[in-house]
């Protein structure tokens, strides 16, 4: 193993950039050697497949829920469509939408025609 990294006192305080660079390179090289590829455990594959199956199961549940929601939305829109097709709107009234017009339309039959003669009689009394 390269031990160059472990004797930094040789470099001292006046270590040049080039020296520091090569020191860092040797450190990285030593790190690569100090961390070999680990062997997988015997449970690696079974655990991996268990995770895959769990992810598949959750995505299946999600897709089923999504399908159910889409079906429900389609059904609701069909029902709404049928309802709106069978709905016949009431005849258009003479009401132009103003409050005065509405009041006038509502009470026009309750009012008696103005009896000018009777009022004048009252005034005379």
């Amino acid at each position, binding site marked *: *193993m390269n*031990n160059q*990294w*472990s004797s*930094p*006192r040789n*470099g*001292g*305080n006046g*270590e040049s*950039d080039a020296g*520091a*660079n090569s*020191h*860092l*390179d040797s*450190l*990285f090289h*030593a*790190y*690569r*050697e*100090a*961390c*070999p*590829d*680990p*062997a*997988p*455990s015997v449970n*690696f*594959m079974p*655990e*991996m*497949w268990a*995770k*895959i199956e769990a*992810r598949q199961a959750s995505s299946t549940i999600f897709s089923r829920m999504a399908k159910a929601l889409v079906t429900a939305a389609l059904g609701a829109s069909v029902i709404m469509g049928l309802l709106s097709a069978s709905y016949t709107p009431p005849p258009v009234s003479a009401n132009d939408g103003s409050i005065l017009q509405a009041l006038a339309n509502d009470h026009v039959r309750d009012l008696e025609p103005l009896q000018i003669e009777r009022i004048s009689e009252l005034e005379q009394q």
Partner: protein
Amino acid sequence: MLVEFELLQQAQRGDASAFNQVVTAYRRRILGTISRLIGRPEDVEDVAQEVFLRLYFSLDQLRTPEVFEPWLYRLTVNASYDYLRKSKRRPESRMSDLSEQQVMMADAAAGSKAQTEEGEKHRVRDTVQSLLSSVSEEDRILLTLKEVEGLSLRELEQIYHVSENSLKVRLFRARQRVLKNVKGVTRRRGNSASSDDGL
């Protein structure tokens, strides 16, 4: 490439045995890369399983064999990065965080361990991981891929989908930050060594 494209195509069609062969061919390399990227041996298998899980569910997007390995590396980098982001904790005190006295004590303890090769390896791992902790997680991963894994700029381009020039700039800056830390640790150790000599 460690496997034939035909095997990948079989795995794409849902052949579990073919997928097992792909995993078997690459898992050791992926485990090694992850262990050097995240520096926590106890979580390496979990992250590697996440990589192969992502591979399993995205394998149908693979069209050409030459992009498979950069793509697998990309999945590895992303899973490692996600892990580091989630954990956001450092397992133990790093050399760069220690006081001068603590550095001397750690050196003394490590000195006895250094009698054996395993002790030496332990010191290297601790030193490099402490140096890499001075840069962001992204730069740490990029530096590790370049300097430790030995990936070329061309391969990094394929993984990161950025130009070679911007990779060079980012690598240079990250390396400068690590170098600054190297000099600091070296200076502190040099000082403590000369005070030892004076005693």
